[in-house]
């Protein structure tokens, strides 16, 4: 087995010389809408996507709600007000396909460079990939094999055209258009993303994966992902992201909705490596994302695993609504911040059904002058008899100029709930470093070893190849934060 065909290659050794090796810009002719946001732009996006009438209306309704909303100020992140009229909401590569149905070589090259081969001959074994470039899905691999099992895995635009009833049935049922400022914005202008539908009783045989790439300048990326697992179905989905290195900030406001019916399981893994800006905090992606799962049926399970190592600002709380009896929600997170990065991330577990249980394992690592906060809510409603939660939030500080904060909130409205909460904050210990170094391992490798050990409980939740890449990626990020 060679590396290239079995792993989702986010890093290679040659990348070690470069701090952020995804900072390149692809020269692709774009089909763009003018900057700015109004009802005409929303209509134009919908028209570009050839969407049904109801969808256009849905977007417009979301847009009107967004206009009345305030952006959230409660997070521990600071940034100047965003001028929403100075953002381009639609930019798509003009020629995605050459005659004969081959993917445009420049685009294929871009994804190749990112380690995501999208041409048929180079497909990754065991992973079906949907590649999203700015506002458009470029290619989805392994389609026929999935179709045989009744699995739908395609871009959201295609889903709206070919499976409108399914989309209509589920879209916005977990994250309503008016949920929050960024979710409303996304609902109005989302351009692409992935749609996955796993029918009753089917176990998806490969990992489904979407790779998001922001390329165009001054363009926001607003993708929408919807995953539905019917009764007894299983799917593991992985998401990766990168963007070019630019001096101005770019907005990424995604919405992800997961729906698990009775006995279904959805495992959602993210490795987020958006461009994070430079030492002075110049540039980088604003990663303002709403992710929520709904365990709708009994005995269902939704598991979020995230490794967040990029983005200038992260505002993200993948959550689970545990409505079905005996349903299970999990959140495993590693958030690494460096330089002037700011991360305010965590989860919400809302227990509604009986005997529901949730696990939260959060590992925050801060270096440089960064700020890293965990924010979590565990809410147990009166109906959630015998609900259980176990939370463990650990923070590690590297150096003296970074900060870590933990804001856990527990609201239990039943006396039968069992809720455990552990939290630690530690400086990477001088004694640990000395001990490891005393065995011949240099300071950088020693730090990396200790941090990897610290994140072990989360990394082991990732699909195997992805976990190897996540470890390498974290090592690479650490190289520039020691000493």
């Amino acid at each position, binding site marked *: 087995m060679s590396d290239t065909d079995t792993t989702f290659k986010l890093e290679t050794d040659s990348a070690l010389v470069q701090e952020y090796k995804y900072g390149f810009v692809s020269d692709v002719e774009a089909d763009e809408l003018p900057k700015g946001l109004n009802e005409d732009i929303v209509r134009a996006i919908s028209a570009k996507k050839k969407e049904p009438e109801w969808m256009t209306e849905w977007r417009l309704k979301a847009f009107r709600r967004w206009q009345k909303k305030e952006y959230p100020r409660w997070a521990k992140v600071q940034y100047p007000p965003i001028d929403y009229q100075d953002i381009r909401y639609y930019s798509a590569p003009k020629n995605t396909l050459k005659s004969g149905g081959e993917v445009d070589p420049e685009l294929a090259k871009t994804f190749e460079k990112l380690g995501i081969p999208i041409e048929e001959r180079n497909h990754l074994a065991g992973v079906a990939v949907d590649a999203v470039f700015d506002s458009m899905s470029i290619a989805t691999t392994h389609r026929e094999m999935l179709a045989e099992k009744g699995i739908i895995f395609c871009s959201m635009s295609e889903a709206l055209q070919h499976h409108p009833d399914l989309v209509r049935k589920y879209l916005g049922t977990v994250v309503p258009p008016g949920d929050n400022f960024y979710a409303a914005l996304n609902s109005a202008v989302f351009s692409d993303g992935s749609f996955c539908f796993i029918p009753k009783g089917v176990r998806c045989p490969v990992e489904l994966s979407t790779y998001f790439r922001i390329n165009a300048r001054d363009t926001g990326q607003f993708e929408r992902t919807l995953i539905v697992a019917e009764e007894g179905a299983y799917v593991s989905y992985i998401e990766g992201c990168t963007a070019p290195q630019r001096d101005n900030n770019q907005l990424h406001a995604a919405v992800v909705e997961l729906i698990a019916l009775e006995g279904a399981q959805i495992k959602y893994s993210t490795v987020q490596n958006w461009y994070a800006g430079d030492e002075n905090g110049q540039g980088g992606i604003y990663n303002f994302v709403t992710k929520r799962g709904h365990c709708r049926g009994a005995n269902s399970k939704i598991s979020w695993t995230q490794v967040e190592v990029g983005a200038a600002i992260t505002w993200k709380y993948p959550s689970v609504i545990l409505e079905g009896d005996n349903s299970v929600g999990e959140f495993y997170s590693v958030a690494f911040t460096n330089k002037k990065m700011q991360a305010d991330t965590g989860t919400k577990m809302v227990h509604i059904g009986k005997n529901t249980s949730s696990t939260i394992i959060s590992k925050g690592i801060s270096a440089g002058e960064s700020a890293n906060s965990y924010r979590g809510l565990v809410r147990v409603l009166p109906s959630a008899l015998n609900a259980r939660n176990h939370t463990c939030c650990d923070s590690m500080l590297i150096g003296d100029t970074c900060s870590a904060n933990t804001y856990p909130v527990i609201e239990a409205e039943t006396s039968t709930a069992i809720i455990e909460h552990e939290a630690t904050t530690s400086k990477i*210990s*001088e*004694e*640990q470093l*000395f*001990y*490891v*170094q*005393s*065995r*011949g*391992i*240099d*300071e950088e*490798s*020693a730090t990396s*070893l*200790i941090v*990897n*050990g*610290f*994140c*072990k*409980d989360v990394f082991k939740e990732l699909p195997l190849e992805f976990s190897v890449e996540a470890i390498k990626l974290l090592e690479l990020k650490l190289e520039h934060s020691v000493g």
Partner: protein
Amino acid sequence: MSEKTPFFEIRNLHAKTEDKAILKGVNLTILPGETHALMGPNGSGKSTLSNVIMGHPAYEVTDGEVIFQGQNILELDPDARARLGLFLAFQYPVAIPGISVAKFLKSAADARFGQGTIKPAQFIKQLREDMKFLEMSEAFINRFLNDGFSGGEKKRMEILQMLTLKPVLAVMDETDSGLDIDALRIVSKGVNRMVGPNFGLLVITHYERILRYIAPSHLHVLIDGQVAMSGGPDLVKEVEKNGYDWIREKFGKEVLV
């Protein structure tokens, strides 16, 4: 280098921590094949000496040299000292959660002997044999390093690391403290496997008990940051019988007990 070249020599070593002078001119020479014991009352600077030899960042060397393998190692980082063949068995080994014993030892062995020098299968085989020798359960291979280990298990793990990394000079910082008689026997068995003509050993201890298992050729008594007296095996018996006071008097210094 002839066989008796002093490959390890501490010269006039002075060190302090947070403005408190602890070592005040330590001199000590170890030749290959020799086992030295270092004893002394609480607060005399024994553990500081072992930490300074290995390069703990909390201590500042204010004067003197530590010569090992022909160079002054005080200028080197702890990892570079280890790669030269220096080893410290810690008095209080720390835990590294999430990193298995096998992974840690393989990383350390790769650092010491060069990446790729030891094949993984061969490495694990040797590790299993060494663990058996130290009467450790094989399950330790996959446990996280020192995480939840008992005091005795941690000390055995230190000796396992020593056997794996094959140092040429080892310093044992009160490895015997807190060990029951069986554990002491096992630890000593491990150490004695290392002892040979090309290996130097410095055993720092409070109790002469371990010296019945690891026979030192030399004994030094550290008092108030200096070697107050050195001698052969006979000195061990005298210390056992009469304590340190007579040495202190002879040395002519006021020392806090």
